[in-house]
Structure formats: structure tokens, C-alpha cells
């Protein structure tokens, strides 16, 4: 089992946000999570990847059979958990290539492999950039600095294919992408799929799921997964809206 979340309750301050999440993702699976604004999708992502500021009041998260709740964000990342951010952060003055190489070498070091020098890394990253059809000029800029919304998302996927995580959580990676970019990103993800790699794709649009076919679709509402189904669930949602499920719950 790649990821096993049991009865997860979490709050920010006194405000409960996740109210009993149960989720199991097997190796090689592609899961999609849909749900209204503010239902807790990014919160769930942040908690899995180890962001501070949340209190876990109940439940557990296991990754590859072990609890990760006490692990630092960097340890989780080194162990193969990756988040593509809904809002990638701009880091002024930190060169994108240098950042990517630092991250890449942190992983190599963790795996007991020798670090890559600047020239070898350059060769590697150019290959990776082809996968997401990114222009080389982004390498010279600061991390996400002045990147358009779509360029930031491509930069996230570039990081994913470079760091090669086992579990990738893509938080609204499709938002803000034009049709061509959406296809490129979807292609990047599809080519990256492997039987030992799992994905959780968070999206508001069925459109993405046409390109990236999910095995399982979940609907998150007010901090709980209220419905789970196959890819037809996404289609039904698009047609009927979330109101349909509100009714279901009553």
C-alpha cells in the first residue's frame, strides 16, 4: 500500500477542517479528488507533505506501511512524497537551476549516490525540460519569479519528473493552463506513470480527467470523503454539480 489514511481529523487553531478522512492508494494507482472550494483538498495535501500549522486531532497517515506524522517535510520528500503546489511560491534571488540541483542532490545524497556537478545536472535537466516542453530561459530565472500561472505549473511538473517521487499529489495543476499546456502537462504525467508510482490528482474539472484517466474518483465535502467511484463519477459531477451529492447525504 502506497498511502493509507485512516479517520484523519485535523484543525487550524480551533477550526476543524478535516473531519475523518479515509483514503487508500495502492502502488500504480491514479486517484482523483474533486470537491468544492474550501472543502479541504489543499489542507489534506499539505498535511500529507508535512506543512506546519495544522493540528492532527485524530487518525493516522501511513506511507509505504509506516506512519509519517512525525517526519519533517524534507524527510517525507526524500522518501518519495511530492506535492505540486496549487500556488507555487516565488523565491526571489534563488536561481531555478541551482534550486533544482540542490533538491536533486539532496535526494542523491539520501540515496547514498554521489552528487551531480553543475555540468552533468545541466544535461539531465535539459532532457527533463523536453518532457514538459519548457524553454531553457526558465533555468536562468529565480524560482517562479515572474513565471505566468501556467509556467509555474509546468515548473512543478518539471520538479516531479526530476525528483521522481513514488507518490505525487497534484493540487489543481490544471488550473490556469491553456489547452495546449494542459495536454503537455497531462502527457508529462502519463509518461511518468509506472506500476510503482501513485498519484492523487486534485481538480475542479472533468476536462483534465479526459487526458489523465483516474482509476478512482473521490468527492471531498466539508472535510470528509462523501463519495468514491470510477471515472464516471467525475462526469456525473460535471453534469449535476455538487448539489446532487448534498441531496445524497441527506
Amino acid at each position, binding site marked *: 500500500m502506497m498511502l493509507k489514511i485512516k479517520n484523519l481529523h485535523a484543525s487550524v487553531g480551533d477550526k476543524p477542517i478535516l473531519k475523518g478522512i479515509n483514503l487508500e492508494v495502492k502502488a500504480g494507482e491514479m486517484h482523483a479528488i474533486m470537491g468544492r472550494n474550501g472543502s479541504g483538498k489543499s489542507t489534506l495535501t499539505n498535511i500529507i507533505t508535512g506543512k506546519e500549522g495544522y493540528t492532527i486531532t485524530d487518525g493516522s497517515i501511513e506511507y509505504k506501511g509506516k506512519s509519517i506524522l512525525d517526519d519533517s517535510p524534507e524527510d517525507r*520528500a526524500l522518501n518519495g512524497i511530492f506535492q505540486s503546489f496549487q500556488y*507555487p511560491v*516565488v523565491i526571489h534571488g534563488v536561481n531555478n537551476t541551482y534550486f533544482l540541483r*540542490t533538491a536533486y542532490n539532496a535526494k542523491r545524497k539520501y540515496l547514498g549516490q554521489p552528487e551531480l556537478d553543475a555540468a552533468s545536472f545541466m544535461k539531465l535537466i535539459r532532457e527533463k525540460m523536453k518532457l514538459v516542453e519548457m524553454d531553457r530561459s526558465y533555468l536562468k530565472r529565480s524560482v517562479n519569479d515572474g513565471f505566468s500561472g501556467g509556467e509555474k505549473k509546468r515548473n512543478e511538473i518539471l520538479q516531479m519528473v526530476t525528483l521522481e517521487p513514488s507518490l505525487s499529489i497534484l493540487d489543481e495543476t490544471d488550473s490556469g493552463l491553456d489547452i495546449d499546456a494542459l495536454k503537455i502537462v497531462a502527457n508529462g504525467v502519463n509518461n511518468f506513470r509506472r506500476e510503482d508510482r501513485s498519484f492523487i490528482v486534485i481538480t475542479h474539472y472533468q476536462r483534465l480527467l479526459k487526458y489523465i484517466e483516474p482509476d478512482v474518483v473521490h468527492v471531498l465535502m466539508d472535510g470528509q470523503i462523501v463519495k468514491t467511484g470510477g471515472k464516471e463519477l467525475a462526469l456525473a459531477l460535471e453534469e449535476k454539480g455538487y448539489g446532487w451529492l448534498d441531496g445524497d447525504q441527506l
Partner: protein
Amino acid sequence: MNSFYGKEFDRWVKDGHGSSNHTLREVGLKHFQELGFPTTRQEEWRFTNVSQLGKSHYSWSSSTKVDEQAIQKLLDEHRIADTYTICMINGVLNKNLSNFHESIIIEDILSANTDSFHENSISTPFTDWNTAFYNSGLYLEIPDNIQIEKPIRVIWINQFNSHTEVVHSKSHVNMGLNSEAVIIDHFLTDSNYESIINHVSGIQLNENSQCEYIKIQEETSAKHFHSLDVIQDANSRYISTQLATGSPLNRNECTIIQQGEGCDSKLYVLGLQRDQHHVDYQTIIRHDNIHGTSREVVKNILRDSSRAVFNGRVIVARGSQKTDAFQSNKNILLSKNARVNANPQLEIYADDVACSHGSTTGELDDDALFYLRSRGIGLDEAQSLMISGFATEVIENISSESIRDLFTLRLENWLEAKA
């Protein structure tokens, strides 16, 4: 205090010093004695307390007591490739330790008439004190139409033999018409005394000249006071990058006056503070003519109980149309005990101008830190990466690679010395 410095002056004159500009010196002494050291009741000194200085008697540190071996060692330790060197020991030029291009004019400041240069600037007790006692100094001229490619590094080495000595050093740079040069003031000491460096300097940029001025302050235990006046004639370009790596007290007063039209002034500052260090930048950029541009970026990174003060004024005079001025002050606090007092000010008396300014002080951005950590970069390295990124906006403006490398190295040393 009155009697001590009066007697000190008499003794000093009797020793054969201060024969030039005697009247000016007496005026300086009189002012200094009347005003005494500033108190925190004075607005410009509100956050920088120097009242302690009045309790000691600082005597003039003579250049005859220097330890040449120690100086050589210091020079060896601080070599920078591809630069000319001008070596000033306790404010006095040492020709043997200097080497520079023949087209650069170097003289003792006493033989060059530079007194009128500071006439328009506001004197302070420290500049008055300097006027009374400065005994030598550097006059450096780049003649008309001459471009010097290699950076010219002026190394100010001050050696002290007690806690209560003061060096009054002075320099004047004259950039001829259409001339270009990179000039570095590098302040070093090998003494651990808490003495005083009281430096006064001026840079005159004649028409269409360009001066890249770099200042590196690395005295770790001495108190450093520096008053710098820059006067720019038409179409001249002044680009300054300054590094302060921390001392118990580092006060910089810098006034840039755009006298001619179409001037460009840039001032970038990086302060790395730790322990109880205190850095204070008082800057004035005066747009006295039309079509001037200025950009000021003052950044401090503070640890422990250190403190940074920034008081920056950009003044656009009446009629200085088409001025474009930008001022920014940013501070990162790495400790709860570090403090910043920032006061950025725009004073605009013309209507057709574009001016903006701002000041921010805070910890490292949590979201950015998490972003880096979520990529497997450890907390310490993530912090270092962000701090280096913050400093880049200053360092990247330096044209010379070897100087840029020195700034980067100092930053790395500072980051490593964290523990």
C-alpha cells in the same frame, strides 16, 4: 571633554601636526567641543546611542606605532585578484605597499585643496572632530577621459594599541570628465580594541563620468563612523554597493547630490549583523536637477541581539522634473531579539516625477521555506538558500567577478558561523 580635546589639540599641534588649514581645524574643534557627542534626544541619533563615547578620552592614534609584519599578514589574507592596491595605514598612504596604474593621480589630501567640497554638507560632531584632527589622507583622481578597467582597492588598515584611540582618516576621489573607474574602500583591522575609526570622504563625479564605488567594512571590534558626500555633475553615473559584516557600532552617513541633469545614482547595501552588532545607515539622495534617476536598496540580515537602523531620505527639489526614484529597505530577522528601526522618507517638491519607496521587516517566509523543504532540502540549507537569495539583489550589481565572489564568500562565512 572640552578640556581634554583642547589639550589634545594643543599637544598635537606642538608635535608639528595640523599646520595646514589651521583656521578650519580650530573651527572644527570649537564645534566639536560645543556640541559634544550626540545624544539619543537628537532625531538622527534616536536609535544609535553613542553617549558612552563621552565618558572616555580618545587620543589620536599615530601611524608611527604600526606593526608592519602584521599588516603584511592582513594584506596577504585579504588579497583580491585583478585589483590595484592603495594601502592606507592609520589614514596615511603607504607607497611601498601600494601599486596602481600610472594614469591614476594619487596625492596626500593635505596638498590637494578639497576643503570646499564638504562646504554644503551638514557637519556633525564626528565630521567636526575629523576636521580638527585629520593629519593626512588620500586624494585620488582619475583624469579626464581616462577609463581604468581594474578595480582600485583602497585598503584602510587601522591598528590600535588601546581601547581609547581614534583614527581620523580622510579621502577624496575626483572623477574627471568622461572618466570611469571602480573604487573600493576596504576597511580592515587586526586589532581587537574597541577604538574608533572616524572616516570622512568625498566623491566628485564630473560630467559624464562613472564611478562604481564599493565599500567593505570588516572591523569586528572597532566602532566605525563614516561620512560620505557624493556630488554628481550632469550625466554622471554613481553605482555603489556596500557590505557591512558587523561591528559593535557602524554608522554610515551618505549624501548623494545630483547637481547636474540626467544623473543616475544607485546605492545597494547589504548588512550582516550578529551578536550585539549595530549598523546604522543614514542616507540622503538629493535630486537637485531634472531627468535624474536613483535606486536605493538597503538590506539587512540580523541574528542574535543585533540591530539595524535605516533612515533614508530621497529629496526631489522643486523643478527637478522627470525624476525617477526608487527606495527600498528590507530586513530579515532571524532571532526574536534582533531589532530594526526603519524610516524611509520621500520628500517631493516637483510634480512630474515617478517615486516609490517601501520598507519591510520580518522573518523568513514560511511558505517559501516549506516549498524548499517539500523538495527534500533540509531546514538549514533551505534557510541559507533563502538568505543568499535575499542578498543576491545587492551582490548581483557588482561588476567585478572577484569582488562579487568576495561578497558571496563573506555571506557564506556569515551563514556558517551561525552555530
